[in-house]
């Protein structure tokens, strides 16, 4: 978690801001200019924006029968059911609109900034729903007028959002207020507890919003995206008020308490509406990738060594686990208890990690990325060819038995006391514990001597060496540690999914993991978890766009890099990749043409 490191702060301290061809990631300047004529009537614009938003919310959005929809009759009002039975985007828009009107009239610190967050939320909700209706619901006619009724709710709401945004900018965007108040420690803990419970609620709502994707529920993707948009606006507004910063500061003051409460809160997810077998499985899968992403974060985020074949370690863990599980297709006819298997997987993956990492002794930067990519490809090819009869080849290794401890199979539904818990809840608990362990390892390593050595290597390897850091072994150690963590996750993965196939460990998966780390924010734990959660939930939710999943993913990568390269949760201390090191600026020693010319060999803080 960061305290005061918002995007503007990071950028202001970095020399990158001085470069002309780095675009400002937020179009603040242009919007300010655009809103300037409105400045004398900023309050009026804000109120008008709020009113128009509310009106837009209550206008009809669709005027024809949506085939297969939950409302087979003329769906003039609402076309999907929102999380927890609340009436979806309409409710969000009304709340946002009313909040905007109140904020426009009542003097609250940083209200312009808060309004800006709300405005973006309104815009996101109206654009997403409008687009969805137009594209999936039968063309532009659906959002304008047809059937005698006028259905331009989406357009009116969008106008409201834009008005709000301009009004917010016209009145000026204040700096984010800082809450310095110290309360009674127990009151502070109470606040934290409430905040974490709210977080639990939000996580459950995000998971369940839109329901299960797939043919039976064609609106799930739209509902989910719309909810995400609203949530984004909501959190932007909260952040603008300084509340999130304050809570982050509180959580750092009561660190142990926060960690324990978060763990309990995470374990309480099965008690929320997300507590069904399906969501437990989704959450467990997210957990696997989150744990792996944290492992990758050690290699990429801390030590600055770009790894493009990282998913191989997850695969190695999974394959080892599959072979030791007693599955019919396994190479060895033994079934070891799960904890033992896990440790073996971690060790084997760690050994491979050291092997893959050993070229770091001689290879740097982009070249290292290529070496790791090569190792990843070798792994996939070998697994595809069923090397040594270990991987099952294209038949995969099916029928891996469920984890069993004390006579309870982890896939069974269990009851604690009078509470009936969904099937798969034990897997969920297990993966939460694994992720917690991985997080613990990561955060302790990060603050340790070793972690500081990694960061030093990332910042400047030669300087680090000059300071007496033995860079070689320490770089290999980064690979080893990261791979070990992935191996753990792999063992879990094998048993949870029951089938291990080389197809789960292709280059695309490595890219997705890397994207998760970068999207979340490199070098931070919450970042990796958030990134993994987003990148592995979206495909689950956007089932009806199954064909376009990868396409959207590719476009999303490009957009993220363009507009928020520092990630959602940027690391306070990490500057190497973001702050532009002027020494790295020249494209040193490169010729494109002459074969007599020297080769570009810049060491890259990749």
């Amino acid at each position, binding site marked *: 978690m960061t305290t005061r490191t918002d995007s503007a702060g990071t950028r202001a301290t970095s020399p990158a801001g001085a470069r002309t061809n780095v675009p400002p990631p937020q179009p603040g300047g242009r919007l300010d200019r655009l809103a300037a004529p409105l400045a004398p009537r900023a309050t009026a614009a804000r109120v008008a924006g709020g009113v128009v938003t509310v009106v837009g919310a209550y206008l009809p959005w669709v005027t024809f029968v949506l085939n297969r929809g939950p409302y087979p009759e003329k769906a003039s009002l609402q076309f999907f059911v929102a999380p927890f039975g609340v009436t979806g985007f309409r409710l969000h828009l009304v709340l946002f609109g009313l909040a905007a009107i109140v904020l426009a009239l009542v003097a609250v610190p940083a209200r312009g900034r808060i309004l800006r967050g709300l405005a973006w939320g309104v815009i996101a909700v109206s654009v997403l729903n409008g687009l969805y209706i137009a594209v999936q619901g039968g063309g532009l006619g659906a959002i304008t007028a047809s059937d005698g009724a006028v259905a331009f709710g989406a357009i009116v709401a969008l106008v409201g959002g834009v008005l709000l945004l301009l009004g917010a900018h016209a009145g000026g965007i204040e700096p984010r207020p800082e809450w310095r108040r110290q309360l009674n420690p127990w009151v502070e803990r109470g606040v934290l507890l409430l905040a974490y419970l709210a977080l639990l609620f939000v996580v459950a709502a995000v998971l369940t919003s839109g329901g299960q994707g797939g043919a039976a529920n064609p609106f799930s993707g739209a509902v989910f995206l719309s909810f995400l948009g609203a949530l984004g606006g909501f959190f932007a507004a909260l952040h603008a008020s300084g509340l999130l910063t304050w809570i982050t500061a509180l959580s750092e003051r009561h660190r142990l308490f926060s960690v324990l409460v978060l763990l309990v809160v995470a374990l309480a997810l099965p008690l929320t509406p997300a507590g069904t077998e399906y969501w437990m499985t989704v959450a467990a899968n997210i957990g696997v990738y989150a744990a792996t992403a944290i492992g990758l974060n050690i290699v990429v985020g801390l030590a600055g060594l770009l790894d493009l074949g990282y998913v191989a370690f997850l695969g190695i863990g999974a394959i080892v686990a599959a072979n030791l599980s007693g599955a019919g297709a396994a190479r060895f006819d033994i079934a070891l208890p799960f904890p033992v298997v896990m440790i073996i997987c971690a060790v084997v993956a760690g050994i491979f990690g050291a092997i893959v990492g050993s070229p770091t002794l001689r290879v740097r930067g982009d070249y290292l990325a*290529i070496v790791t990519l090569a190792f990843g490809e070798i792994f996939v090819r070998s697994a595809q060819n069923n090397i040594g009869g270990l991987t099952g080849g294209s038949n995969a290794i099916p029928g891996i038995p469920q984890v069993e401890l004390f006579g309870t199979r982890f896939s069974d539904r269990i009851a604690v006391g009078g509470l009936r818990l969904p099937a798969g809840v034990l897997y969920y608990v297990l993966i939460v514990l694994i992720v917690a362990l991985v997080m613990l390892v990561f955060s302790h390593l990060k603050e340790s001597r070793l972690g500081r050595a990694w960061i030093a290597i990332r910042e400047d390897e030669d300087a680090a060496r000059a300071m007496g850091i033995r860079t070689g072994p320490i770089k290999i150690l980064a690979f080893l540690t990261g791979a070990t963590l992935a191996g753990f996750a792999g063992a879990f993965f094998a048993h949870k999914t029951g089938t291990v196939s080389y197809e789960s460990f292709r280059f695309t998966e490595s890219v997705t993991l890397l994207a998760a780390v970068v999207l979340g924010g490199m070098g931070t734990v919450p970042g990796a978890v958030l990134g993994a959660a987003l990148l592995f939930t979206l495909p689950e939710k956007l089932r009806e766009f199954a064909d376009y999943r990868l396409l959207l*993913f*590719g476009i999303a990568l490009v957009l993220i890099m363009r507009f928020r390269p520092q990630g959602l949760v940027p690391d306070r201390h990490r500057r190497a990749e973001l702050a532009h090191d002027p020494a790295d600026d020249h*494209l040193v020693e490169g010729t494109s043409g002459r074969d007599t010319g020297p*080769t570009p060999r810049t060491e890259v803080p*990749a």
Partner: protein
Amino acid sequence: MLTTFLSQIVNGLILGSLIGLIALGYTMVYGIIQLINFAHGEIFMVGAYGGLAVFTYLLPTFVQQQWYLALPLLLVVGAAVSTAVGVLLERFAYRPLRGAPKLAPLITALGVSVALQELIRNFYPGATAALPFPRVFVQGTVEVPVPGGTVPLRWTGLLIIVVSLVLAYALSSFVSNSRMGRAMRAVSQDPDTARLMGVDTDRIIVLTFVLGAVLAGVAGILYGTDLGFINSDIGLQNGLFAFTAAVLGGIGNLKGAVVGGIVIGLVKTLGGQYLPGGTAYDYVWIFVVLIAVLVFRPQGFFGESERVRA
């Protein structure tokens, strides 16, 4: 025995010169802006599909039937489509990120690569499966006599080798002799100084992308003509090979790219023939060679040894 060996050499040379052609684009872009343009393989793929689209939907039948009319046309079209995509990418994906953290353009490139591949797969009619590509060249093989038999040489293979070598030579003389080529070299050595000397660096970078894309587009058409079908994932696969080739030869080095491509081609065909595991493992050998070269000669065949910065 000898005939098998020689025909695998021939196959290796054909594949290798094709890969070398793609590798030139990688190596030039890396030399100029130090970006691993992962999307370059996709530019190659898009060129092939562009040619296929024009051939299928635009060309009148009599042109389709005459290869000496159709082939040059397709080569031009492929190059044009690839160039358009390459220039758009440079302008809208990479240029905004110039000066951004190193990882940002790399991940952008990966994203662009995925997106382009999926665009074609989803929106080109029938591209979810392999599509037949017109064989717009003389079909059949010529039997080259060698001691102990004959070695078959495909005419299309010969075409690939000749076109690749000619283009590579043309490119290298352009870069070393022309005014623009000198500007390119200047930018790759030091963009800031080059700018001070009056070189329009933005234009030079676009030029680099254009040159690379033209070669990739031509390679795409040649690939389709030789194999007779194309797939939406040919870009990823061949792009990876080509990148490997560029690294092998010493990235930033034109001669190295071609030599690296030929080495890759030979390793693939000969490894598939003679090494344990057969063709199922030929990819593995390519990457093993890559790792070995990078570890023992990180600068590649033709690169100069690393100058460690203080």
